């Protein structure tokens, strides 16, 4: 799943337990539909698993557009919408008339303890080719398979096997950690640091580990259970 921060494209951003789908206000109808198809294809099932917040920005959303949007994307791909956002008064009134939840605060976002960042909880394994970018912590209740990637500005915790690539503390100055139940990754990244070559001969291979930055270098140690 690629986040796209280009102003003229639909972007997907992590926010709490949801992914926020931000639709540019001036995007043409056809481009919007093509962009949605593309982002759903790239997300490969994650959208339906995680749930989304749809943000139409300043766009004036008509009933016809909304019903087509719901029919062509929400129902067709079995997406779960936590909230509908808009900065347009008429659009907000339409949401209210249809009893659609229209406040981001209504969504049951999960927050990590201590730092006030919102956590993204992924309740399935990540397959090869799937990619998550999130502003905050990420918890994966499953494996991160070889070829999957997670970039998070906060901490990353994997309950299953870690074989894919994790980058915690991405573009962040805060101290972050990576934890996993079974470490089998070739590489990890924490803040601006990249691990040296790790292989199955490492004494931590296959064990539960915590990886942190200590004295400006990556430090990996076994989690004593």
């Amino acid at each position, binding site marked *: 799943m690629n986040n796209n921060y280009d102003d003229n494209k639909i972007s997907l951003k992590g926010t709490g337990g949801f992914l926020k789908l931000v639709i540019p206000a001036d995007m043409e109808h056809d481009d919007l539909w093509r962009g949605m198809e593309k982002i759903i*294809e790239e997300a*490969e099932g994650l959208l339906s698993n995680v749930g989304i917040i749809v943000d139409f920005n300043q766009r004036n959303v008509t009933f016809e557009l909304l019903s087509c949007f719901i029919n062509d994307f929400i129902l067709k791909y079995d997406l779960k919408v936590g909230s509908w956002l808009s900065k347009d008064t008429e659009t907000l009134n339409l949401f209210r008339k249809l009893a659609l939840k229209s406040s981001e605060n209504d969504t049951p976002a999960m927050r990590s303890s201590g730092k006030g960042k919102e956590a993204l909880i992924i309740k399935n*394994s990540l397959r*090869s*080719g799937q990619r998550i970018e999130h502003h905050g912590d990420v918890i994966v209740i499953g*494996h991160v*398979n*070889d*070829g999957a990637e997670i970039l998070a500005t906060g901490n990353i915790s994997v309950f299953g096997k870690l*074989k894919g690539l994790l980058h915690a503390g991405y573009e962040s100055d805060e101290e972050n950690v990576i934890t996993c139940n079974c470490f089998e990754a070739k590489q990890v990244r924490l803040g601006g640091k990249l691990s040296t070559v790790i292989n199955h001969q490492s004494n931590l291979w296959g064990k539960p580990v915590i990886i942190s930055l200590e004295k400006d270098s990556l430090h990996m140690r076994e989690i004593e259970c």
Partner: protein
Amino acid sequence: MESRVIVVTSGKGGVGKTTTSANLSVSLARAGYKVVAVDADIGLRNLDLVMGLENRVVYNFVDVIEGSCRLNQALVRDKRVENLFLLPAAQTRTKDAVNPSQMVALTEDLKKEFDFVIMDCPAGIEGGFQNAAAGADEGLIVTTPEISAVRDADRIIGMLESLQKSPNRLIINRVRPKMIKGGDMLEVEDVLDVLAVKLIGVVPEDPSVIRSTNSGEPLAFANDSPASKAFENIASRLTGVDVPFLDLENMNGSGFFTGFKKLFRFSR
């Protein structure tokens, strides 16, 4: 019965998709079902060779889609078994000769005539895969016990899930129990732990596969080799028959099925 369209796919090339498609099609036809094997690999068709029907190909499904012939004209009947047909791919065209919506329309037409539509998917995740998967209801993922094939299978399962194909079931091909025993090959359990989909069959490495491919006589006709039996069992399981897995332990002196109990630690 309601017609079923099954895409046989893998992501990686050379793992046995075409061999699997041919043998499952033969086994299902021998079991009395009306079956069409569709070669969805436009530009690199092989299924006609593996099924030994290359001399009888006149039209292909691209001709059907373009309206150059009727569907019945492009279907090649296999004379060795009743109710088995091949719908060949075009060899002189490329994957972009058709699009997913045309493939959906084609499979809808095939569903009216056949109990099973077996789509032999090309390798890769681009247009060829998208076309083959478009009209399919369910997926059969073929992999070998190699890390490269398993990673590609993982990718393709993710794509099938995103296309809402279900169920997606796994065939592990070319298993060598002796290598597994020696620690030189991934165990079935390891493959399942990564891919987390239901296993429908394990096919042992079998030299007779190469002989049958070269002779254009699918193994399922002979019915006497380990691989042939494995394909026949997979076909039975596809139809809902509960068939025990082959006892490769005694066949080859290895105990690699002992770990099956720990499957699906993280189910999807």
